[in-house]
């Protein structure tokens, strides 16, 4: 073996030991932090500035029973990608509390499916002041209309894509600050409105509606379009306010 070969071999050995050390550290931390996959209560688990796309590398699936403030004030940007890259799932379907789950997480842009069907009725502050938030893959509500989401998206000024499954039937819904909502998102919101409740208001951005349903590019006349009228016709039990 030449000296060059020995150096190459030594470096490879060094790298292998280094990587093994990193993995051992990774395992030691995440095995404890996630209780070898048994952790269910993730209240405040990834809150505050230390959590970002570089540090958030969970080892185990997270089937949470408490997601209160779970990502509050974190610096994670793409939660959907981070979960996928680490091969883990975030499942909130058994969670009884998601209050302020992403509150003031001002860097986050992409959030995967969030299921709140097992939560107490009010999911206050869920996406509050997520100013950079563009996409929530899906928000799953209870089918009985009891989930209260009226102020879930306060200050979500960048929101473009949100699909709502389930029924909006309590307190109304206000996303007036989300001026970039897509047609699919607005359609999803209207379709999710309870067909049986009365006295409630959904407040949408007039800019968003006029753009999404405009009759031709740049017309900005969506609120007077036939398509918009057809969409909202079945929900005459709701006041639809554009502002």
């Amino acid at each position, binding site marked *: 073996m030449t000296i060059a070969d020995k150096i190459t071999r030594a470096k490879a050995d060094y790298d292998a030991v280094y990587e093994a050390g990193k993995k051992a550290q990774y395992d030691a931390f995440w095995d404890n932090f996630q209780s070898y996959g048994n952790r269910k209560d993730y209240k405040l688990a990834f809150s505050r500035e230390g959590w970002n796309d570089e540090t958030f590398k969970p080892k185990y699936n997270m089937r949470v029973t408490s997601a209160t403030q779970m990502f509050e004030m974190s610096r994670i940007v793409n939660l959907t990608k981070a979960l996928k890259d680490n091969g883990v799932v975030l499942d909130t379907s058994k969670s009884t509390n998601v209050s302020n789950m992403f509150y003031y997480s001002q860097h986050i842009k992409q959030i995967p499916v969030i299921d709140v069907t097992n939560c107490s009725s009010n999911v206050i502050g869920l996406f509050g002041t997520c100013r950079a938030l563009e996409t929530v893959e899906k928000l799953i509500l209870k089918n009985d209309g009891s989930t209260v989401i009226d102020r879930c998206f306060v200050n979500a000024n960048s929101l473009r894509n949100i699909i709502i499954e389930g029924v909006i039937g309590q307190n109304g819904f206000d996303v007036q600050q989300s001026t970039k909502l897509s047609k699919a998102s607005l359609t999803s919101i209207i379709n999710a409105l309870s067909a049986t409740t009365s006295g*409630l208001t959904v407040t949408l951005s007039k800019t968003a509606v006029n753009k999404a349903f405009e009759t031709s590019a740049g017309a900005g006349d969506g*609120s007077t379009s036939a398509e918009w009228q057809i969409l909202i016709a079945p929900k005459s039990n709701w006041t639809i*306010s*554009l502002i």
Partner: protein
Amino acid sequence: MRTSIKAHDGMILTNGEIYGTEIFLADGLKAEDFHEITKVEYERIMEEQEKANENI
């Protein structure tokens, strides 16, 4: 076709609970129940409501 009411430029329609520049009225609501306020007044009201919500 849903009945809608529109505010004049720079104004906001309200009945004291609902606010909007264009409002598609639910069954049972009447246009005459609404009046116009300025945007400044609207923002003042929203600020007060925000403070009240923070104290809950």
